[in-house]
């Protein structure tokens, strides 16, 4: 009887030991990282407000006719924002090149660009005097062309633009227009002359690329205050994120895949424009603000979009595409009367995995370069 009783105690001690081992192994001593959270760009953050204020550098010159009793001093403006198109149905996307360059995403992209040693970048720097990694500040893509802001004061750039017999002339208060032409030798010995993009250099800090000289001049006119009175498509208060801007519904329709054309048509019918903001400081988080005039139709469109995203997520889960499903986990539509906000995110880890081939290629190139050196006998 006593022996059997003692066995229970032995049994208990063994069980406690086993339980401790099981719990220790099961829980693990290392703390698990918290689940990923994504910060979506929704409004100006303090550092972005500071950036916005520091960019108000240009005071438009005024012609004093002597009629005003007490002329009000003009406020300085941001020349890049002033250069943006005006009115409805226009597209302008601003890429904060400098901010993206110094973000983790920028580092990854740079790694990809430099995987072949960065010879192209060096050649570009040598020929133009512009270091894209240091001298670029913002890049704006519009329907009419491209606007690049930064430091373009190097003489080499002007020489390059004005070389090869291209026409160039001053325009407005501080701009110079370049109309380069390119020659190409033909196989029969003749040459063909082709007009290159029209380029405007404003105050050594903004390059404007356009299809026609008039297009470039219109941009310069807007910067120097000779444009229409309408406000630019992007207001100062909307300059948050590392990429931001307004995309016209027509442009957006083209971006939809063929199987989503029904949704694209609905979007074109309901929305007036779409404001985009992308935060690339850690993860790639995007918000798209869709505005329309009919609240019911906008809400319906929001529901359709939410449904499309949910279906895409379910499909990704069913087909075992873990990364895509994880990406769409953060997809959300937030309706608010005549507008709704769509949120989408790509975690940085997913981007890293996608761009891993760049690092592998770079490593293999480096090891190949190193091999011949190792083979050389040391003197």
């Amino acid at each position: 009887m006593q022996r059997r009783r003692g066995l229970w105690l032995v049994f208990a001690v063994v069980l406690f030991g086993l339980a401790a081992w099981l719990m220790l192994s099961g829980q693990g001593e290392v703390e698990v990282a918290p689940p990923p959270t994504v910060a979506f760009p929704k409004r100006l953050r303090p550092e972005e407000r500071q950036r916005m204020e520091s960019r108000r550098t240009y005071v438009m010159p005024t012609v004093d006719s002597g009629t005003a009793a007490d002329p009000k001093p003009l406020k300085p403006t941001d020349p890049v924002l002033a250069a943006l198109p005006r009115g409805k149905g226009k597209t302008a996307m601003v890429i904060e090149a400098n901010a993206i360059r110094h973000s983790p995403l920028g580092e990854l992209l740079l790694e990809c660009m430099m995987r072949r040693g960065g010879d192209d970048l060096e050649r570009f720097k040598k020929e133009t005097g512009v270091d894209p990694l240091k001298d670029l500040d913002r890049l704006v893509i519009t329907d009419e062309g491209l606007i690049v802001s930064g430091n373009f004061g190097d003489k080499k750039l002007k020489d390059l633009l004005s070389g090869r017999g291209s026409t160039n002339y001053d325009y407005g208060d501080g701009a110079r227009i370049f109309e380069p032409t390119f020659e190409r030798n033909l196989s029969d010995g003749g040459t063909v002359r082709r007009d290159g993009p029209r380029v405007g250099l404003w105050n050594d800090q903004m390059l404007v690329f356009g299809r026609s000289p008039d297009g470039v001049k219109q941009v310069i006119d807007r910067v120097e205050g000779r444009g229409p009175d309408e406000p630019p498509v992007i207001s100062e208060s909307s300059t948050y994120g590392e990429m931001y801007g307004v995309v016209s519904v027509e442009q957006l329709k083209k971006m939809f895949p063929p199987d989503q054309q029904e949704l694209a048509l609905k979007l074109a019918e309901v929305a007036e424009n779409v404001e985009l903001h992308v935060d690339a400081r850690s993860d790639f988080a995007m918000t798209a603000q869709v505005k329309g005039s009919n609240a019911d139709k906008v809400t319906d469109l929001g529901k359709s979009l939410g449904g499309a995203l949910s279906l895409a997520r379910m499909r990704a889960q069913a087909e075992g595409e873990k990364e895509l499903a994880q990406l769409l986990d953060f997809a959300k539509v937030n309706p608010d009367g005549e507008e709704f906000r769509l949120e989408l995110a790509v975690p940085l880890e997913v981007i890293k995995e996608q761009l891993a081939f760049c690092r592998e290629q770079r490593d293999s190139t480096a090891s190949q370069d190193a091999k011949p050196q190792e083979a050389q006998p040391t003197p």
Partner: protein
Amino acid sequence: MSGVLGIAGYVLREAAARKFILAFLLGVTGVLVTLSLSLRIEVVDGALAASRLFGEVMDTNILAVDVALRPIFMAAAAIVFYGGILFGIVSCSDFAPSLLSPGRIEHLLALPLRRWHILAGTFLGVMTLAVCAALYGSLGLVLIFGVKTGYWTVGPIISALLACVSFAAVYAVMLTTATVIRSAALCAALGGLTMVAGIIAGYRAKIAPFIEEGLSRELFKAVTLLLPRLSSLAQASMDLAASAPLGVQSLSMLLAGVLVFGLGMLAVGFWWFEGRDY
């Protein structure tokens, strides 16, 4: 074995006779019925487009149903886990002391049963009760949200069963206490203490650095090494309910560890009960 089942049946009959348990079941039923009648959910292509509780708009965001339901299922799992254990401690604290009370124990000991059969039967009866209650509540919740949203998941049911395993560890302590001192209040107090200790044990890796290095920290680590990691299991049950990635290294090992702790505690109870004179 039939002796163990007989005692378990006796415990269940005793539970059915108690108004407290019946009130609990009616309460859970009431919550489920109210939820099913007052909650209106609109789903478009698998996305939760609108939800209203008692006619009030709850959340305006449109997102995938399972993502939208995650916080609800997580909260439900947490309530089932901690609330269920607490309710179990209070409602079941009296079973063992009353079974071992003078008069009854002599009658039970006169039956052709081994002593450990009595304790094992009580344990089995209480655990049957806990599993039935957990399944009833979690299945009801899954059914309501499944019918309303078309999203079916076994997550909340599994998390409820995890809560039962945790309660098994807590109740084993209570049952062993009852063999030493026949007091419902002491059983409940030690059950509550085990629950708190189990929560602390789950966070031992986080808490340990705040304790002065040396003997006290090593003592803390040694004591919490043996205790059931209830908070870790609670977190895992919430993760499971929400179909989120698990934060623990191996759920099956952790679960087995907590269950084995309960069995170990039960073995201590058997040892003590075998040597006791009534």
